[in-house]
């Protein structure tokens, strides 16, 4: 999408909603080095949200949308859950259809966009909760990876079904007492990052969203590698403060506690060999560009 597409006719400018006016004049579509630091000085691609106050998922949404390398040509796919309450407010085309079919939707979407726009970059990013990714949709999550579909899958792991009121999920910790796990969950947290690696993902990260700079880095890597090589997977801890008995202000601390070295969301990153080469090439090019710019200045 070129920026001209969203330009408002001068005759209609004053009747357009202010958030749309802002999107045209202050959003970062097309800005090459866009990132989390734009938050606060530009129009974000998310307008309000209806999540609980202090929900880490809202932070994650803001960081991810600020970090997408190519939002003007990115289509997102969601699933049923808390994320589906946010997507209607997102200024990137996004699809909600059913619960759990997000990676199937994304497979068809990515192929259609490749057929229709063979010479252009069109990124596809899936963003769904852990119930959608690991339980009801696991088949389609894995099959998209087996087929080497070229899109990024992001799982907001809050370790339960939040939107339906805190039921047991496959990514819940063993022993946790929840609805539908009345005597505590009887089996281990599903090890999806490892499964992702074995299923053919070229870039896998397991972390929290406590650090926006880290979210920016892994999102940019994941989208670039998916675009050029094959499937990528990010599993991001976005605790459901409501269901684990925390207050609005405690989400960040919960993430910091859970990312300590021996904890379940300690930063883990897997990069396949072709992906490693791609990132090295990108970094070398960026370095070259910086050096050239420096020379120009001096």
């Amino acid at each position, binding site marked *: 999408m070129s920026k001209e597409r969203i330009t408002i006719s001068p005759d209609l400018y004053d009747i357009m909603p202010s958030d*749309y006016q802002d999107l045209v004049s202050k959003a970062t579509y097309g800005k090459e080095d866009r990132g989390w630091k734009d938050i606060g000085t530009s129009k974000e691609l998310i307008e309000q949200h209806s999540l609980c106050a202090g929900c880490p998922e809202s932070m994650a949404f803001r960081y991810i949308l600020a970090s997408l390398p190519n939002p003007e040509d990115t289509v997102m796919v969601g699933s049923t859950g808390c994320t589906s309450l946010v997507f209607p407010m997102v200024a*990137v085309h996004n699809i909600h259809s059913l619960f759990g079919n997000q990676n199937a939707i994304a497979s068809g979407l990515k192929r259609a966009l490749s057929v229709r726009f063979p010479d252009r970059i069109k990124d596809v990013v899936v963003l769904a909760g852990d119930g959608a990714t690991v339980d009801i949709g696991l088949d389609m999550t894995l099959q998209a990876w087996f087929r080497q579909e070229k899109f990024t899958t992001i799982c907001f792991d809050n370790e339960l079904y939040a939107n339906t009121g805190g039921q047991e999920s496959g990514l819940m910790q063993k022993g946790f007492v929840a609805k539908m796990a009345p005597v505590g969950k009887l089996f281990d947290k599903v090890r999806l990052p490892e499964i992702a690696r074995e299923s053919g993902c070229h870039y896998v990260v397991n972390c929290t969203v406590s650090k926006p700079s880290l979210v920016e880095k892994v999102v940019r890597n994941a989208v670039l590698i998916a675009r050029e090589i094959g499937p990528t997977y990010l599993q991001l801890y976005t605790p459901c403060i409501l269901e684990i008995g925390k207050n609005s202000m405690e989400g960040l601390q919960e993430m910091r506690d859970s990312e300590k070295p021996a904890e379940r969301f300690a930063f883990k990153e897997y990069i396949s060999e072709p992906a490693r080469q791609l990132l090295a090439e990108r970094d070398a090019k960026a370095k070259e560009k910086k050096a050239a710019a420096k020379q120009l200045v001096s």
Partner: protein
Amino acid sequence: MEPTSVIGTKNKKNQVFTDPRIMMREAPRTPSFYTGSEVIKEAIRRASIDVMIAYPITPQSEAAALIGELFAEGYIGDYFRGESEFAVMSQCAGAAFGGARVFTTTAGPGTMRAMENFPMWAGARLPIQCIVTCRGINSPLSIQPDTIEISYLMQTGMLVWHAETAQDFYDWILMGYMVSEEPDVHLPLALCCDGFFVTHTKDVVDLTPTDMCLPPYDPYRSPVPCMDMECPPVRMMRDPFIMKSNYISYATHASWQQEIWAAAERSRKHTIAWLNGLIETEDIDADVLIVTSGTAVSQGREAIRLLADEGIRVGLVKIKTLRPWPEEEIKEATKHATHIIVPEFNVIGWMAKEIKATIPRSERVVAGPRVCGGMTMPPEIIVEEIKRALGVRSTTLAARG
């Protein structure tokens, strides 16, 4: 972009994008002796399909695989095997959301597994075409013809057409895209046929020229935005309606559902023009009429011939579209009839129920004969049903059964 702007230009297979009216009505036809599955392939060769997604299930597997050959030959943009019918129908949805013309096929248990997707397709206004080669869905397992799955599809908001012959199939696949892609329709089409009877038998079908194809789908004529980031990514709504328990939320959902069904109704005028009416009639001044769809119509034709030999006059109403339902047409066609015989290939008799709910004096409807589970329907049992209704003594073997 005007969809007609490409008319006269060629695709990469050297086919000429042709005005569909000329291609379907005026272009020379070549009689060809093909199975129903091969006929599907030949129609798709000329349909300018962007994405086809396949999954094996009898009796549609052959057609789905033959379309893979078309992909290998370069006639289709992309093609792959999905992992289940539920996934395939979601993959089709993804491709259609992304602005592709999409084709797929399924059957019986596959239709049932995919079912959650169909109201979603209709609700999202995705003009996907799905061929349904009907077969049994019950346990114990059956792969034989049975049309019960159509009764489920009829409640999804999709257009549902029921082909009698391979020729119907050929023409309706191509015409189906023209109807379902109209901006005031823009709905998915379930194009049904009776498995094996149509898919696995050979018939002479008049094909349009190989070097002509439909103009490509133009997703920007859709009544809802195409999800390709080529139009402004406006906020779709200020609040997500799903979480609101208020009158506006309910009214929005209700009016959208009504709009889906209204869109199906609006397809009438396009369908009548393409299919030459939603029903087809023969000798409807007769007191006795056979009214049905699919291959039950073919068997009805045979029964009519047998009865004519005995001096009993019977007329025929072939119902081509089940959604939209040709209510007025059926009322008009059956107004003189004293006996309306409805032969069906399913245990519940959904067609007879629909007709009973449509016409005045519904006691005229004879809900049968019905066969199911893969049984064939010999014309003699239709003859017997008619004679019984008329109080005529029958001497056929079936009559003694």
